[in-house]
């Protein structure tokens, strides 16, 4: 009986020791990670490339030179205006749209002229892109 109790006590001690060791090793790992991260510096040239590729902000500038930005797919936009609004506000759909052929783009634009509802236009773009 005494032997059994002793074994049980040793097992408990061993388990708690192992979990403490595991927790300690996790915390050491996190500490090492934080130490490495604090010294990290990225190559400036890759960062510069990123700054010049911010299409969203360059689009806003284009519009500010034309008497203010248009943010909605309101009826009556020209083809160019339609594309810029799409790019400014529906980037995901725009990425699909820009891969379409010119004739497919025309079809989307004609669809917009009849249905200036953003959700329907997005569906149309997806539908045409799958053809």
């Amino acid at each position: 009986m005494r032997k059994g109790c002793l074994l049980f006590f040793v097992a408990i001690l061993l388990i708690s020791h192992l979990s403490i060791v595991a927790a300690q090793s996790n915390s050491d790992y996190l500490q090492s990670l934080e130490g490495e991260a604090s010294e990290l510096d990225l190559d400036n040239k890759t960062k510069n490339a990123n700054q010049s590729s911010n299409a969203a902000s360059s689009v806003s500038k284009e519009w500010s030179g034309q008497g203010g930005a248009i943010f909605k797919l309101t009826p009556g936009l020209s083809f160019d205006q339609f594309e810029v609004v799409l790019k400014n506000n529906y980037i995901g759909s725009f990425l699909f749209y820009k891969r379409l052929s010119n004739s497919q783009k025309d079809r989307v634009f004609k669809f917009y002229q009849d249905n200036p509802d953003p959700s329907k236009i997005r569906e149309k773009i997806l539908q045409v892109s799958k053809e």
Partner: protein
Amino acid sequence: MTIRLLLLLLPMALSNAHALDVKLTPSRDFVEVIHQSKLIKIQRIQDQDHTLEGGFAKTSRKCPPFCIQPMQAAEGVKTIGQLEIFDFMEKELLDETGLIIDARTPAWWKRGTIPGSINIPFTVFALDVDDPQLIDMMHILGAKRRGEVGGFTRTIESFGLMGGDQKNDEWDFTSAKKLVLWCNGMWCGQSPRAIKGLLELGYPADKIMYYRGGMQGWQSLGLTVVVPE
């Protein structure tokens, strides 16, 4: 005659001026991706004399913990390279059936990340199954926490019926997204840990991919990085 020839050649010369000398592949100049609601163009540094600078030029870090990782992070998990990531960005990421996960701790993420990535530190996947942070993150990945599941239902599911191969007692992975996990590169154990955590939660291995090259591979090719806002 000479002027005519020049006029004819001028548009060609101008169009060539825009072509990149350092492309991604012979037929691909760049890839565009949405990152934090902005369109980011991923391309390579065009300066062919440039050599890598900064933290990712460093070759040696203490091992352990920064040891070389195996090619395969876990059984059933595919290891991929940069080209597969570009394809993933243009397909799964764009149609919202996939996510690219920067599995590093926030301190690394803040210094710069691969465009299109979201940050879910590997530590999240080791949280208790009822932890709200884990539940939130799993929800982002498309996995749903299950309520009480009856023994009868689980028995039927265990035969692969009722979508049982995509479910366990805790989670429903039926709508789980395809994932690409990455960290700092071949010497980094953060994304392998995240992958193991996900598999322990029951996330289907065939929906997980491991980009072993990580940030080091990305930087060594001079690819665009973004510093999160």
